[in-house]
């Protein structure tokens, strides 16, 4: 019969229309911004820098190795190395970024900086309401704006952050054990008759790029 298909289709739309009042599955729209859906844990938006402790600038994990700057596909990261050093999370003196800017108008949230970072220093944020009236300077985030605490990281990506924390703690324990062993060896050496003044030689600085990728 001519028109049968149309009637069948109309019945389908009628079913959907009626269903949208009763079935939650058929009512898919969320009235943003009054209503918000819970963010999904793996969501990624723009990168941020993780810091430990309470002082954002002192606790930055970043050691300005510039790997992310080099690997970033759209080249939106700008890093200047510091000339002095500050201790990192295991207490080893490290270079830190004197300038760390991310131009989020260029960033495409691909997460490659996070993947290549050997120091767990850069992670992806879930914040998406970043609109600003200044479309040039306002979208270049500097290190003060980028620095966010490890607690915040634990809050937005709990599973991932727990793994990272465990890995870092293990590394730290290893370094501490090594330092203890070294100190014990030095003490043993000092106890022996002093042969020279060279025992206080600092450990050779490891090249950050060659360190295992965590």
């Amino acid at each position, binding site marked *: 019969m001519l028109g*049968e298909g149309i009637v*069948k*289709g109309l019945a389908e739309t009628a079913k*959907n229309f009626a269903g949208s009042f009763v079935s939650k599955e058929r009512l898919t729209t969320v009235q943003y911004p009054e209503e918000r859906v819970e963010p999904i844990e*793996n969501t990624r938006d723009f990168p941020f820098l993780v810091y430990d402790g309470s002082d954002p600038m002192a606790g930055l994990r970043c050691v300005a190795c510039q*790997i992310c700057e080099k690997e970033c596909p759209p080249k939106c990261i700008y890093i200047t190395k510091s000339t002095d050093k500050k201790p990192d999370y295991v207490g080893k003196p490290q270079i830190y970024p004197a300038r760390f800017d991310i131009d989020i108008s260029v960033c495409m949230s*691909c997460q490659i900086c996070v993947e290549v970072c050997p120091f767990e220093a850069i992670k992806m944020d879930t914040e998406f309401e970043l609109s600003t009236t200044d479309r040039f300077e306002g979208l270049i985030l500097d290190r003060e704006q980028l620095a966010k605490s490890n607690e915040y990281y634990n809050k937005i990506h709990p*599973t991932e952050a727990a793994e990272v924390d465990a890995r870092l703690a293990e590394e730290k324990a290893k370094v501490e054990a090594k330092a203890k062993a070294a100190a014990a060896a030095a003490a043993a050496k000092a106890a022996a008759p002093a042969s020279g003044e060279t025992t206080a030689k600092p450990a050779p600085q490891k090249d950050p790029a060659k360190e295992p990728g965590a």
Partner: protein
Amino acid sequence: MSTAAFKSYRPPVIEPSNEGELLEVAMGPHHPSTHGVFRMDVALDGEIVIKLKPVFGYLHRNHEKIAEKASYLASMPYTDRLDYFCSMTNNWAYAIAVEKLAGIEVPERAQYIRVITAELTRIQNHASAIGFLLQEMGASGTPLMYAFREREKILDIFEELSGSRMMCNYMRFGGCRVELPKDWLEKVAAIVDGLPRFIDEIEALLTGNEILMARTQGVGVLKPDLAVNAGITGPMLRATGVNYDIRKVDRYGIYDRFEFRVPLGDHGDIYDRYMVRVLEMRESVGILRQALKDVPAGPIVDPKQKVRGFRPKPGEAYGRIEGPKGELGFYLISDGSGNPYRYRVRPPSLINLTVLEDMCIGQNVADVVLTFGSVDIVLGEVDR
């Protein structure tokens, strides 16, 4: 086949009547039916199309040249932006090309996850392609919104897996990027169980619809010989009756383990393209059910694979997959350095567009819009 034979399959050009002059119209670049920025320079005799010249390049982003300056890994997020509807399959095609080039093995688990994500991508792409086609036909919204409702569920699943809904950037050379989240496979299984109902709904809405039949049957016909000669692939080719599916031909990944049929059309018109897409969605649901049953445990990425400093040995490779729109291939030449010497994409959308004139000549302007919509293109991939 000789060029003479190729020419003979062109639809007869209708001679312009002497009563009026030909009208040249630029359809686009901002025509609502062009899904982006694309222009068709058409010569019209009244309502009849005499000549049609596709003009593209408005969205050219220098993808191939950028890839030659960037490391192999850095091109991966750019492949998401080729066909932004199907980032998972784009990732896979590029990963296959690099894996061939460097001889990387992919773990079992990663293979299964790749199949699952690719088939989900195929379903959401076909669903929205049908929706957009109907939108252009004047069914303003309803089928498209139904398709998007289903697509949203699949995109949510992708977001949970990869962190992003459309720009997934999920696959890596030798596997996938991150381990599956908890209960992910169960969630996919729940969505797959709901899909047949959605496909039934779309079919009840459209397949028997007399208006749709009248608009699409016998319109935009593509002959199988021309389709093969012009290198058309994907649902467009299969709608003409040519049995060519790279999942069956190459059996890349682990597609030889799954049972599925390749739906074929008879007439090569728009209705057949629509029908082939619907049937492909059904077959994809079948593949997903088989794949979800036995995802093995194990590593998700080749543990020997380094993230940084990837330098394949000199050589060349062409990796291709059956993308939702057709054969998507990546051709790479390595000179042993950290970035490819040559990087070339074979985009299905661009090559499927080349027969647009042959399908449109002698038809009404309104049918040009439909024919164009039935090709299922994404301009990000056409222009690159």
